[in-house]
């Protein structure tokens, strides 16, 4: 009996790598194909972005600017955040602008808008404006000019309309109104928003970054230069959850028909709410959480591997010691 056990651990010790690869593949493929429910814990940096954006609800004199600073290679992590934030804005009637400074980001930006728009009756020019692509070389001049007058800095939107003529711009002048900028990047691109928009004009700046970049940006959260941050798929999953729990909340009316009943952020509610994956019909609204499931399984699996490997190691070591 004891011998058999030893053998198992010894076998585990010398386990062919290919089994590990297989398990990794399954650990990722299965959660992607069969979404299951898991709990998403919301962290403070995510919460802060949500609260800030939510405080613009229904206000004509407030707007959010989303800056897309990445290409397709980091799409897996950043795209879900973009959709989640756009959805939040559309759901809560928050004015939102989008802009990008690298050509490769333009299709992603259009795609994010198209994806998030699905199911909402929002109109370009009234509920949101896509500023389109502007060359990288004039990025900083635009950032600075926006502190003075956005419609002078950008002039035309992506559809070629003059900004001053758009209804959405009526009460939006500069960073005083377009009070939050969220920059999505797999790099330190948000730094220029901090140095130009934040330091010079006091705009709030937040970042959506890949997981690898999150630690580097942590310091700006501490110094308050970043209002909030979404880090990798996890941040996106957290934001998705916040949108579902608060902005998209539904309550039955007297006839028992579910009606939209958005509510304000509260730590209590989030603690006690459980959302079933299967209740969310649109796959794009839960991509990050499904991806996060795969992440969780993969992380756990790696940890289990480490532990198994070590148990095997200790048992075989003891055996060796005995022999000696």
């Amino acid at each position: 009996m004891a011998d058999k056990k030893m053998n198992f651990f010894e076998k585990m010790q010398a386990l062919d790598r290919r089994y590990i690869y297989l398990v990794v593949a399954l650990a990722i493929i299965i959660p992607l194909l069969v979404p299951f429910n898991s709990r998403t814990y919301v962290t403070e940096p995510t919460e802060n972005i949500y609260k800030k954006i939510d405080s613009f609800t229904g206000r004509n004199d407030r707007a959010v600017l989303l800056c897309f600073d990445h290409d397709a290679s980091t799409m897996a992590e950043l795209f879900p955040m973009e959709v989640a934030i756009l959805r939040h804005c559309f759901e809560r009637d928050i004015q939102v602008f989008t802009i990008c400074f690298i050509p490769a980001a333009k299709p992603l930006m259009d795609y994010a808008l198209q994806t998030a728009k699905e199911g909402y009756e929002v109109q370009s020019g009234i509920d949101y404006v896509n500023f389109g692509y502007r060359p990288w070389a004039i990025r900083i001049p635009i950032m600075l000019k926006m502190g003075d007058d956005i419609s002078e800095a950008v002039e035309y939107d992506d559809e070629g309309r003059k900004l001053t003529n758009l209804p959405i711009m009526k009460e939006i002048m500069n960073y005083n109104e377009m009070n939050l900028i969220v920059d999505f990047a797999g790099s330190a691109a948000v730094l220029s928003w901090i140095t130009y928009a934040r330091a010079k004009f006091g705009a709030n700046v937040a970042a959506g970054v890949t997981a690898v970049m999150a630690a580097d940006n942590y310091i700006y959260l501490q110094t308050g230069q970043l209002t909030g941050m979404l880090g990798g798929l996890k941040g996106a999953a957290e934001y998705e959850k916040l949108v579902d729990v608060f902005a998209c909340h539904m309550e039955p009316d007297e006839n028992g028909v579910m009606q939209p009943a958005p509510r304000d952020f509260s730590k209590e509610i989030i603690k006690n709410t459980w959302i079933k994956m299967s209740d969310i019909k649109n796959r794009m609204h839960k991509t990050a959480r499904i991806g996060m499931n795969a992440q969780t399984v993969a992380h756990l699996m790696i940890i289990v591997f480490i532990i198994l490997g070590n148990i095997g190691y200790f048992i075989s070591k003891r055996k060796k010691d005995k022999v000696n």
Partner: protein
Amino acid sequence: MKRQIPLLIVIILGFIFVIHVFVPHKASADFYDWYQTWIKAISPFMVLLGIMSLFMVHSTKIKRKVPNWQYSVITLASLIGTGAVGFIWGTQAGTPFMWLFKNVQMPMGATMFSLLAFYIASAAYKAFRARSAEATVLLIAAIIVMLGQVPIGIKISKLIPETSNWILNVPNLAAKRGIAMGVGLGMTATSLKILLGIERTYMGGGK
């Protein structure tokens, strides 16, 4: 002539560049611009080295019919094919050249990169052994940070994400700073060695 003059070029240019760093004057900036235009004119020829070497290696393999020589034919054919396609149809979006990039090179690059997920798992399994105190520390730190990144971590204990953050912001920061300072010194020293002509590996051997 063969060795001394190039060395002299490096040393003279090197010292001018040391001075350039301290002198913001227009003259200094102009010197830098001049150097840049020259370097840019030199640089495209470097690719010849790569192509020549690639052809030499693979044609030798084909000639000698070493095992797997057939694949060398494929390599050379794809090299010539891609280059030709780029010269014939141009390199704009929508050309066959970009099609090759999008559907052959990019997916393979991304897949190669994503193999890291498998390797990171097998490395963790095979190499994370608590052989010594140091190895144990490494292992535990890795596990905590891994747990701290997924929701399950907070479920196990509230302390896990906090500890994970602490590890990243305290010991990790100290480690990075200490190593970076050492590396910085080493880099300065190596640059200085090149500047003084002590280090001349880059010249290659020979007289």
